[in-house]
């Protein structure tokens, strides 16, 4: 019967697609800008970036935070070593705020010494802080991705399809008096302050939200992104940068609808071999393959269904894409989780490529694909 319905639908509504993922076009039109970017540094397990007013760049990688004092490639100094893997970073109030997986948030002074720590809010622990932001007023904002898993288990959280348990939390510069501004989000993964509101990305719902700083309300600015949005930062040329750490695929969306199969898959198979998005940071012969990903004459088609992908977009304050930077399926700069601007250059963190790349910010200058000396 469903077959007949399918046929009837095909006949009478040939253009209707019940499970539409938007194609990448308009401001999201594919290009190779991320692959053309120059490598800035290679690291073991980079996750997040921040800068300080002196122009130094901080990178979290594993349990450590590294510092590139001049903001240029070179050998970094270790800024701090923490008790747990370090995720999100943010600079403000003369402090570096860092998220520790399974712990919470710590505030480090300029020597890397811990000054304050926040481990729970509203009675619930902060084990999965995914993003941090500060504003001029000294307030600190953070997103807590999930109550059930740590940040490293993001894929499991997606596949388990829990009701959202993510929160947006605000606290003061000393990490005191945490207030939950919003809760029930499905993996909030990025936050930035914009005047009297916060922009928050909600990864599993593929949307950009606007949350009042007093916690009085939430509004959906943009929905149905092609990718999973994560960290978001203000762009100097107006608007905001959003990192998309992977793209949605029809297959992933399909498996998300297939509860029985997904449950078996999660029970019987190692997560890195699941159907689902990937940062692109591991290789396995036994990964699931899709028809479009079969190599032809040894070449991977750039438009093949993406298991991992590299994408950053600059969006307006309303979430409309202005421009985007891509590393397509055949590229190597996948799994973008963070980016910062410095001296009109964009430094991009590729978790999948285990590296930082940098490139001039305006597309005019990237035509040569090289950084002007």
């Amino acid at each position, binding site marked *: 019967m469903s077959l007949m319905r399918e046929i009837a639908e095909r006949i009478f509504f040939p253009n209707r697609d019940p499970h539409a993922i938007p194609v990448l076009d308009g401001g999201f039109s594919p290009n190779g800008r991320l692959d053309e970017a120059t490598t800035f540094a290679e690291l073991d397990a980079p996750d997040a970036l921040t800068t300080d007013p002196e122009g130094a760049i901080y990178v979290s990688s594993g349990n450590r935070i590294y510092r590139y004092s001049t903001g240029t490639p070179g050998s970094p100094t270790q800024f701090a070593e923490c008790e747990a893997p370090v995720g999100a970073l943010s600079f403000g109030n003369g402090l570096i705020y860092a998220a520790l997986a399974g712990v919470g948030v710590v505030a480090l002074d300029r020597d890397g010494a811990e000054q304050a720590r926040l481990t729970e809010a509203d009675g619930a622990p902060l084990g999965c802080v995914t993003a941090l932001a500060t504003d001029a007023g000294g307030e600190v904002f953070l997103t807590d991705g999930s109550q059930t898993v740590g940040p490293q288990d993001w894929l499991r959280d997606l596949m388990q399809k829990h009701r959202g348990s993510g929160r947006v939390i605000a606290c003061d510069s000393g990490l005191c008096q945490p207030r939950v501004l919003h809760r029930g989000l499905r993996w909030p993964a990025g936050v930035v302050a914009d005047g009297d509101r916060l922009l928050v990305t909600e990864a599993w719902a593929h949307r950009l939200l606007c949350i009042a700083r007093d916690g009085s309300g939430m509004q959906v600015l943009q929905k149905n992104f092609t990718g999973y949005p994560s960290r978001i930062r203000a762009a100097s040329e107006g608007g905001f940068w959003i990192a998309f750490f992977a793209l949605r695929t*029809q297959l992933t969306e*399909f498996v998300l609808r297939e509860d029985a199969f997904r449950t078996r898959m999660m029970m019987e198979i190692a997560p890195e*071999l699941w159907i689902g998005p990937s940062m692109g940071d591991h290789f396995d012969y036994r*990964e699931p393959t*899709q028809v479009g990903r079969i190599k032809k004459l*040894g070449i991977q088609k750039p438009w093949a269904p993406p298991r991992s992908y590299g994408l950053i977009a600059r969006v307006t304050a309303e979430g409309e894409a202005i421009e985007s930077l891509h590393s397509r399926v055949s590229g190597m700069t996948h799994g973008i989780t963070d980016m910062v601007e410095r001296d009109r250059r964009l430094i991009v963190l590729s978790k999948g490529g285990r590296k930082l790349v940098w490139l001039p910010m305006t597309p005019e200058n990237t035509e040569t694909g090289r950084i002007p000396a």
Partner: protein
Amino acid sequence: MRRLWYRISPQLLIGELLEKRWMEPAVPFLLMCAIFLAFVVAIPDYGSIQQLQQLMRSFPEQALVAMAMALSILSGGIDLSVGAVFAMANFIALYLAMVLELPVSVAFAGALAWGALIGAANGGLIAYAKTRPFLTTMVVLIVVRAFYELVTVAYATDLASAYVDNAAWDFVGIGDLLGVPVNMVCLLAVAFAAHFFLTRVKPGVHIMAVGSSRKAARHAGINVRLSLFLAYVLSGMLASFAGFLYAARQNSAGTDTGVGWEVNALAAAVVGGISLAGGRGSTSRALIGAAIIFLLINGLVQLGTHGSLTTASIGFLLLLAVGFNVKFVKHKSKILQKIYVSPTLVDFTPPPSIARDSGTVFAENDRLLDVEPIALGKIEGPEDVILDRNDNLYTVNRNGSIIRFLAPDYEIREEFARIGGRPLGLAMDKDENILACVAGMGVYGVRPDRSVFKVTDETTRSRFRLKDDSRLLLADDLDVAPDGRIFFSDASTRYDLADWALDGFEGRGNGRLVCHDPRSGKTSTVLKNLAFPNGVCVAHDGQSVYWVSTWLCRIYRYWIDGPRKGALEVLVDNLPGFPDNINRASDGTYWLALVGLRSPVYDLAMADPSFRVRMVKQIPPDEWLCPGINYGCVLKFNDKGEILESLWDPGATNHPTITSMREHKGYLYIGGLENNRIGRLPLPDADPGWTSWDSYYGDGTTPAAVTAPAPARKAG
């Protein structure tokens, strides 16, 4: 039970049905039958002999006009003048027979001559003056119609009072042959002739060709103008023949004769499923379409429906039918795609580990890391490689040719022979002919003098199967038994090479093992319902054939000689990857290529056909899960079914999709279906003088090498 359900999937039947060419006319045909049956139920005696005769007598003229229209549409144009030509032919026949009282044959000739004349005018303008068919025939329609009204008025009195008793005339009009009305007999004869003409006779086939693609027809050397001209002349003659029959039957030239018939004919053609774009359709479809419209009108009138209601309902039904038809034709392929793939249940057990540190014989290693590339960039898709006794290297190219790289350094590339299709597996017979399985064609051979010959391109057709599987769709690999019999795999009878991953996704036994015996010239299917039989290799002792089922990850042994002849056994089960070609190794064992590696998720999906069914329906083919064939490796096994070693290219950067390997004088040559090179690996422990040909046909002693083995160029 579940397994059985998936094995005899009804979806499979529908999918193969839809793929049939006769499926398109089948839909209107069923509609026609449904309408007829509905009226048989609704109207008493509708199915009686008398009534049937009546229907048959009333139908032919409309059908002939619809055929005339169809012919012009098939030629890529349209003939709107058919109704007017018909009416005028009706008048001419009446005038000649009734007023002038000439013999029926003269009336017949006059009517046909008239049709040919107008057809020639249409055709001349359209074919030679290159006017647009629609406008041209519309103008002709208006002119002829005006002329018709003029003459019917002028001869009104004559016609109204003419009443001649002419036995021949009445025979054509109301006579019958064996109970079938004469005009129906004429229609059947014309329809058969037209069908034969359009499908079997050169000028007719040319008309169809011109209709499908004028450009292609011109390139094929068809006289496009003549074909078009002919199409319109024939169209005019068909319409005027209808006019003649109508005259004999109705004896009347009313002002409404033929009015609007072109519209009904056009509707009939479209309802019958004739593509307005030309080239696709048949006369039978025009007949079916005409019958649908005829039956509807006839039945509704008999039901006592008010005339305006009849017209309105006909219009509505036509709209519906045309809409459905256009949509169906347009989206048939999409529907087919959605339901053709019919996944079945495959239950895998977890395979042995391939992890580098697992300690299994399959553990990843670096043994192919230093493979020396041959012909890098000079070859596209060397699925299989073979060497002759002079060490020249032969391989297949995806453009359908056999390429030879000359010993000793393999720098010189030459096209050895061009077969066409997509050559895959290779073998060499006793006479040093190269035998190749060619996807889409069958098994072919190339003699040392480069001449190509066909070995076989078909096998016995399975009974009780809709799809004609006598043709070899995907001949994949072959080998030659000591007695000269050629055993080869026809990997899938449902998918061609481009869709081979889909065959795996379906997981059904669509393939077969076929044997060609050159002594009798006969080809027969040895084993059928095999899940992608791929590599084929005759065992060293010549008593059995090893073949692999790629999607079941198994090696089978089939006894072709000796005491166990005809027996089939699984030699190796549950390989960690998808096996491809098998070839003999110098130490009495066998090389086996794993074209891909199993993914746990894929195995899980294979055990859940309904999941895959939904996947096929819900997401586009590019996104479907498929066997992982981007990475592979080479294995070695012996007659006992023990896997002896594995050779890996880590990350498969140089050799993705390994499909074959061939040992020759101490080296292993590696081919890949989607690669741009051939790999060559020195085998330090192998017999440096061993060649495949000698292993099959030599006298057992180490043969004298014609040339020394080529010095290995170290990679890097």
